[in-house]
């Protein structure tokens, strides 16, 4: 009778030893990999991961975790016992926090060469998957009817004619709002950006609390009073795709000045049992096959330069030549101060 407990003890020791060895190398192929992301990514994902499952036999389980901020926070809070194998959806504004908390395991994707140097993370802690540009949109019909020229730089916008026709979002409550504030900091520098905003304030710029209000309430296209609204470079194609009867040309256009680029990254969560399979999943997300589905699924642009854009994106929008972008560390360090300074100027 005493033999049984001894065997169990031995098994236990062996098991502990095996667990101890693990971490560097993956011993088996998992049935399922979990990918945690923000709600908007997960809810639209549909069958975009089917090809990966067919190829590798691994199912991909997607877990939505709120907005981008909530996602990163959840990953940090659960870093001792990660919620998933891979995280997707961290952008520049939350990246440095995630990096500082050491939640990622570095990984250099086999497909990383297809991505523009500028988008990549220097230590390959995370892998860029897509980017989106926050840009001013204008109502084409309104500008035609009122016989006005569309402004083509930020200085032009401070003209009271245009400023009073412009709606931007509040940087404290809206992510495109914050992105545009960062754009003005990138364009005018720490010394000049607040002066530009002061001019906009005096010339009557409208401020909305969120993208939703700006676009669906304040935009002339939806019955509001602003013909220029801070939105996305992908909004005009969306206006064509999600129209009751798709028009020949998009009813809205993009102003290339003042665009800000947001890059979204994927990373392997430190502590995963399956680092190798997780790497394969990231390779897949950067493959042409997956990347070409990105525009029409999530309305952002593929990071892989070999991926072809769908015709709607070619015809109705433009990828800005030189969008503004700030380093993740700089954003993390100064964001709170910048927002408060902005509030000081705009709200007195």
């Amino acid at each position: 009778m005493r033999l049984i407990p001894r065997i169990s003890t031995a098994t236990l020791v062996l098991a502990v030893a095996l667990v101890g060895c693990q971490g560097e190398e993956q011993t088996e192929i998992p049935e399922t990999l979990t990918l945690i992301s923000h709600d908007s990514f997960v809810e639209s994902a549909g069958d975009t991961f089917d090809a990966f499952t067919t190829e590798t036999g691994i199912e991909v389980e997607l877990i939505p975790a709120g907005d981008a901020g909530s996602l990163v926070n959840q990953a940090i809070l659960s870093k001792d016992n990660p919620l998933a194998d891979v995280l997707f959806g961290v952008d520049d504004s939350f990246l440095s926090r995630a990096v500082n908390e050491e939640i990622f395991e570095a990984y250099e994707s086999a497909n990383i060469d297809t991505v523009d140097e500028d988008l990549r993370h220097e230590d390959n802690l995370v892998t860029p998957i897509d980017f989106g540009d926050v840009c001013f949109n204008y109502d084409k019909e309104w500008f035609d009817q009122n016989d006005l020229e569309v402004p083509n730089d930020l200085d032009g916008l401070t003209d009271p004619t245009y400023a009073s026709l412009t709606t931007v979002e509040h940087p404290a409550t809206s992510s495109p709002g914050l992105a545009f504030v960062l754009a003005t900091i990138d364009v005018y520098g720490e010394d000049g950006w607040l002066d530009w905003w002061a001019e906009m304030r005096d010339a009557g710029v409208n401020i909305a609390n969120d993208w939703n209000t700006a676009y669906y309430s304040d935009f002339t296209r939806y019955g509001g009073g602003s013909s220029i609204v801070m939105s996305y470079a992908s909004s005009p194609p969306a206006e064509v795709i999600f129209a009751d009867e798709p028009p020949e040309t998009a009813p809205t256009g993009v102003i290339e000045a003042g665009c800000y680029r947001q890059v979204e990254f994927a990373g392997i969560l430190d502590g995963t049992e399956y680092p190798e399979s997780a790497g394969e999943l990231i390779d897949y997300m950067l493959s042409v096959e997956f990347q070409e589905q990105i525009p029409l699924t999530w309305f952002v642009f593929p990071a892989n330069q070999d991926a072809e854009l769908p015709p709607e994106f070619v015809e109705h929008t433009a990828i800005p030549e030189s969008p503004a972008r700030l380093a993740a560390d700089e954003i993390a360090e100064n964001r709170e101060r910048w927002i408060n300074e902005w509030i000081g100027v705009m709200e007195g």
Partner: protein
Amino acid sequence: MKRIRWGWVAVAAPPVIFIGYFFVYPLIRILVLGLSELSVGASGVEARLIRVGWFTLWQATVSTVLTFLAAGPLTWAVSSFEFKGRRLAMALATVPFVLPTVVVGTAFVALGWQESIGAILAAHVFFNVAVVVRTVSTLWSRIDPRIQEAARVLGASEWDVFWRITLRLLRPAIAAAASIVFLFTFTSFGVILILGGFRYATLEVEIYRQAVTLFDLPLAAALAIVQLVGVSGALYWYSRYQERTAVSWTLERGTNLRRPKGRARTGVLFATLGTLIALAIPLSTLVSRSVTGTYYQALFRDDPVVGVPAHSVLNSLVFAVAATLLATIIGVLAATVITGRSGELSRWFDLTLMLPLGTSAVTIGFGFIVALDWPVDLRATRWLVPAAHALVAIPFVVRSTVPTLRSVPAETRDAARVLGASPFRVWREIDLPIVSRAGMVGAAFAFVISLGEFGATSFVARPASATIPTMIFRLLSRPGQTSFGMAMALSVVLAGLTAAVVMAIDRARFGELGSF
């Protein structure tokens, strides 16, 4: 003589375990983690803190008072009279309560009510009228009319009767409704963000900002504690008050509704139509925007981005049924414990059950993330969604059943005991059947809360099945007429579903009573 009452243990165990595991334990874990400096951020914002705290308190108080004023006429009408469309009116008044804040915010913005304290207060009233109407009318309609008649005979005017008799008898229900409205508005989040912007931040908004945007967990935890202390204080006062004013009188078995005549008829007409029109104005903007295209048909088409939006209805229903069952069972057991035991312990238990309503969604959501991987990892499972919904719904079940349970005369239970019923049988044969009707009111609330819930669950990792509110949010956050129209159409579907469910439950309830 002191025996362990196993019956009581059996009744008390499920609610204690549930609230302990899904609320107290995660709450303690996240607060401890926050205060032990996981990461240090910028602090020193006392002035803002005081401003935020003060704003939170006064807007909640004013919102509660205004809600009662707005709900008064309709509550009077549906509690005193039977008239055509009474049940429909009650169902319609419940609709705003379930609509996601983002939808209501959009409707208010469309009406030009943006960025003002007036808009915030109006939205709070709009959301919470149902809480007052339903909670108070449940008790009001069952007051023995002879009590009021007795007062009339003693020389009291109609006004005196209302002021000195009816209102006094209604105190427990009024206190219950007020506490819920106060908690809801005290922890208001979406309404404040959409209609108030950065200038009007409640503690809830500030906790979100500190925790999610700035990741200053120590400050967020400190704020969460301030919020908890404030909420507990209000609740403690409330439970003392309720205990002091609880009067036991024999409730009528059925409701005492008359047909309105003469002046009362005009009054009922104005009260009902006036309230419904006021509530319908924001709702009508949703409807009118949803019918300008083929958006309802579009809900059934496979959208390249969000899938078939109509599927979200099924997901929502499944979650709502699970959450309702959970909340009703736990809530009725909890109410039994609360009313069966007097004293501090039961008061604190009652208070703890109410606390989730007054705890910020971020705190609960993040608490789940750090705590619920033990003993089994529940963090990303299906169980989490109904559990989170139930947490918010249980207080409604408890609040709607406690007054009824308290009003059961002790003699009724004694009679059963003398006739040979063990303590468990007394509960099974007396308390449970009597409370089940009031429990249905709570269940109706639980169901619609789950249908519309967009709070705590948006901060937890969860299974990838979109519910109606998340689908609406998703549609609303992308450009294009169709997206907007579909979001409005889905909102109307949610509103219709709410009204239908509430009406069905009301009917079942009254059918069982046999009064109609």
